């Protein structure tokens, strides 16, 4: 039963609820203090010619404005606060690159990468996860798996980019990522 997994509380979710319900500025300031630096680091890590301190600051600003505006769409039963904010930060980073590359598309980033701001009647999985359990498994990954995973997720590199930058065959990169993900999924309560 999913409930048993909620022993570790998502301490940030109640703050998001306060922002949503009361436009609570104190709660928002705490969220900003915690997530702002992570968003900035996430922006600075992007493997791109467009990465800069200014861009990272702008990313923090945009993501946190979205957090304020969309807090009402955050569903604690579907995702943890940090998963939700990560998805928003990822979308803002994609959007930033899109603007830099002047990609002209009739689609919004959210059309291709929906965040739980829109009704999604078909997602049935319970998403209250134990993040600390993933984190503890991340720490046990062999170093080359952990660093490839970080390159993919945080630096936003493709598997091909990781392969060519590390002089590895593409197949090796793919299988390391797959192994790491499999290992991490066993740290997730809902894995089957």
């Amino acid at each position, binding site marked *: 039963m999913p409930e048993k997994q909620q022993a570790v509380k998502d301490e940030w979710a109640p703050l998001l609820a306060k922002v949503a319900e009361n436009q609570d500025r104190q709660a928002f300031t705490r969220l900003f203090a915690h997530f702002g630096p992570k968003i900035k680091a996430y922006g600075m890590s992007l493997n791109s010619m467009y990465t800069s301190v200014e861009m990272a600051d702008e990313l923090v600003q945009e993501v946190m404005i979205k957090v304020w505006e969309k*807090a009402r769409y955050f569903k604690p039963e579907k995702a943890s606060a940090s998963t939700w904010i990560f998805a928003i930060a990822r979308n803002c980073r994609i959007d930033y690159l899109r603007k830099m590359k002047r990609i002209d598309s009739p*689609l919004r980033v959210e059309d291709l990468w929906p965040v739980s701001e829109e009704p999604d009647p078909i997602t049935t999985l319970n998403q209250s996860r134990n993040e600390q359990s993933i984190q503890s498994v991340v720490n046990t990954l062999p170093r080359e798996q952990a660093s490839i995973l970080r390159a993919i997720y945080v630096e*936003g590199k493709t598997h091909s980019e990781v392969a060519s930058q590390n002089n590895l065959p593409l197949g090796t990169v793919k299988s390391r990522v797959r192994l790491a993900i499999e290992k991490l999924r066993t740290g997730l309560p809902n894995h089957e």
Partner: protein
Amino acid sequence: MNKATTQRQHTPLDRMADNMTQFHPDTHWLAEYVSGSLPEAQALCIATHLEFCPQCRADINALTEIGASLFSATDDTTPLNPQVLDAVWQSITPDNNPPPAVAIQAESHPTSVPAYPDSFPRALRKLIPDGTSGLPWKNIGSRLSVAKLHRIDAERDVSLHRLQPGGVVSDHDHGGREITVVLSGSFSDQNGQYHPGDFLVREPGETHRPTASEDNECICLAVCDAPVKFTGLFSRLLNPLVALQHRH
């Protein structure tokens, strides 16, 4: 717990709802989608598949959580520019916030519904504002028509392919790597039978011979790399010489 994967007897009508999807993107596609590095046209293929496939949605959720935990573990000692918080406060003045929920929801419920097969996913509908009948279909031979959609990334073509019931395309190779996602109907080749939601990748050099099922036309989303002059799942028919062989 997960109703979408409950075992039931399949009746033909159940198939869509009950997920007949059997061909899924490999993990590396899903990981690049979640991390945001996947080019938009390919992300469209993943987003389309996800609307059909509860299993991959569950995978995406797990991959997103993994991403979030790496994001949470980033070295966040970089000092924040204090002006950033000020700028945030400025743009969230009580006047313009919070935005009315209605406005945001309205977008995901188009008022007039053009003619799409029911299975058309949300992301794709936006690229086809006038429905499939309003597309500039080009007949390629008697059984196949192709409609190019708005380009959403610089290096790939996005199009819809429509194969008439029973239509067969001879063995052919693709100019570039191509992703196909079945949207409605079904087709088969030597590797299997493909139903709505199925996600297929053909590398250059792989040949196949798609055949649409007899009872329904088959519509697929096709995204092809390195746009060469003639591309597509049924692309050889675009080549006049090959097309000629089919004109009987």
